[in-house]
Structure formats: structure tokens, C-alpha cells
């Protein structure tokens, strides 16, 4: 079994230009960065493309990184990854149109449940639930999408979100509240468009 990596030492080696250490650091941070990128990935961007952007930015900014007691290096990385994802979401120009007809049957049930409090959702349809959640989130503005993903999908606290984004905690709460309101409007619009369209 391999001994745990000395991150601090590795960072110092990368700062002095050690490419082997840089490779090791990338491997070490792969799960952390992949998880963040996966949850905040714009529609038309590949997971590894955005990861590459995060790692390049990370290595470029590493020179200015100074270790602070009690704050792990991973916090700095998470913050950088979240901000890079937010930039990527902002760069995504168009938001796709979404119609009721695009949904699968399970997703329709979830959306119906969300808007009309219809039947309780079926027990084994978590992929459908995820599909609805991602579609709804994709129709929000990048900061709104980010805050709801961090809060509701990743289950992070408002304090963590505040540290990751640089927003104050009241701002995080306010943004989340507004984002949920917008989400409700988006879901209603989808339902409305369904009933307005000629069959």
C-alpha cells in the first residue's frame, strides 16, 4: 500500500518547477476536481476539457499560493475549481429550449410532482429525477445554478458556499431563495407550453 501523499511537500516541489511532482499533484487532485467539474459542467463542454482548464489555471496560480495554518490546500483548489466552472457556465452563450416532449416518462412524473403535487414519485427513478434537476438548473443563470447545485445537490452548508464563491452568507441565502423561485417559474413555463401547443 502506498503511503499518503505529502501534499505540502509536493506543492513546494511544483512551485520550484518539478514536473514529476506536478503529475503526482494532478493525480492526487483528480477525484476532487472531477467531482466539482462534473456537478457544474456546461452542456457543451467535455468533463476532461474543463478539468484541463482547472489544472492549467491551478499550476499557473500555484506560484502565488501560500500555505495557511489550519486551511488545507484542497480548499484553495476547490475554490479555484468552482470559480473556473462558474466562468465556463457564464461563457455558455445560449440556453437550450426545453419542452415537455423531450422528457422521458419518469421525468414527466417528477416534473408533475414538482409543479402539481401529483402522484408521489416512483421509487426507482433516480436517473429521471437527476435528468429533471439538471434540465431545470440549466435554465437558470450561472450563479443561480451554481448556488443550487452546491446547496441542494452537493449538500454543502451556506458557510462552505460562502468560502468557495467569495459571496457573503446572507448573499448565498438570498441567491438560493431567488434561484428556487426562478426554478419554479421555469418548471411552470415548461408545463404551460405543453398545454398551449396544438396537438
Amino acid at each position, binding site marked *: 500500500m502506498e503511503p499518503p501523499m505529502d501534499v505540502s511537500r509536493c506543492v513546494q516541489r511544483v512551485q520550484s518547477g518539478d*514536473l514529476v511532482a*506536478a*503529475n503526482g499533484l*494532478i*493525480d492526487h487532485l*483528480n*477525484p476532487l476536481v*472531477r*467531482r466539482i467539474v*462534473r*456537478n457544474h459542467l456546461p452542456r457543451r463542454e467535455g468533463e*476532461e476539457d474543463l*478539468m*484541463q482548464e482547472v*489544472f*492549467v489555471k491551478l*499550476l*499557473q*496560480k500555484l*506560484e*502565488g499560493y501560500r500555505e495557511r495554518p489550519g486551511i488545507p490546500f484542497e480548499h484553495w483548489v476547490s475554490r479555484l475549481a468552482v470559480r473556473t466552472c462558474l466562468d465556463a457556465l457564464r461563457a455558455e452563450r445560449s440556453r437550450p429550449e426545453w419542452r415537455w416532449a423531450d422528457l422521458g416518462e419518469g421525468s414527466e412524473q*417528477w416534473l408533475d*410532482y*414538482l409543479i402539481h*403535487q401529483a402522484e408521489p*414519485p416512483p421509487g426507482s*427513478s*433516480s*436517473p429521471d*429525477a*437527476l435528468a*429533471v*434537476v*439538471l434540465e431545470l438548473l440549466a435554465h437558470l443563470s450561472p450563479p443561480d445554478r451554481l448556488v443550487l447545485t452546491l446547496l*441542494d*445537490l452537493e*449538500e454543502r452548508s451556506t458557510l462552505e458556499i460562502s468560502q468557495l464563491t467569495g459571496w457573503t452568507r446572507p448573499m448565498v441565502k438570498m441567491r438560493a431563495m431567488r434561484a*428556487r423561485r426562478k*426554478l*419554479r417559474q421555469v418548471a411552470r413555463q415548461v408545463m404551460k407550453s405543453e398545454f398551449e401547443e396544438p396537438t
Partner: protein
Amino acid sequence: MKPSPTFEERWKRLTSRARMSIPDDFPELPPAFHTRVLAHWQAQPVESWEDLLATLGGRAVWAVVAVCAIAAGFVFTDFHEARISRPELEHVITLEAWIP
């Protein structure tokens, strides 16, 4: 009778179910990935503060000179412009308004 859940509660339920489907596998990165990242890093090293100041310093000086020139122009034209002084203007308004 149990009250029906609010939109927020239904959204929470939806997201908690959705979480079950978020993939939690972390495949190893292909070797080419490291090469690409390192190549980009080496190709675009981040500029140091000194380099940045040296680059922007000249432009900043020209910008300040331009702003000063424009401000001086405004002061010059303002100085030579004939104006009604405030007390006189107030006096006229007061007389017009209150003394028929």
C-alpha cells in the same frame, strides 16, 4: 390530515433522489492529459507582478496624462465662460416669486 408539501419540500425530495444517480466513479486520467496540462502550463506561465506593472505602467502614464489634459481643458473653458452668479439669480427668482 397531513398538509401537502411546499414547492421547496418537493424540490428537496427531487434533489435527494437525484443525488443517488450522480456518478461517484473517478477514473484515472489518461497519460496524455498530464502532458497536455503541463504543456499549457509551460506555454503560458502566469505573469509576475513586476512584468504586469512594467507592461501596464507605460499605458497608465499615458492614460493619466490624457485625463489631466481633458480636465485642464474643462477648467480653461469654465474659467472664461460668462456666468450668472448664484446670489443674483436667487435674488431675481425671489422677487418674481413673492413680490407681485
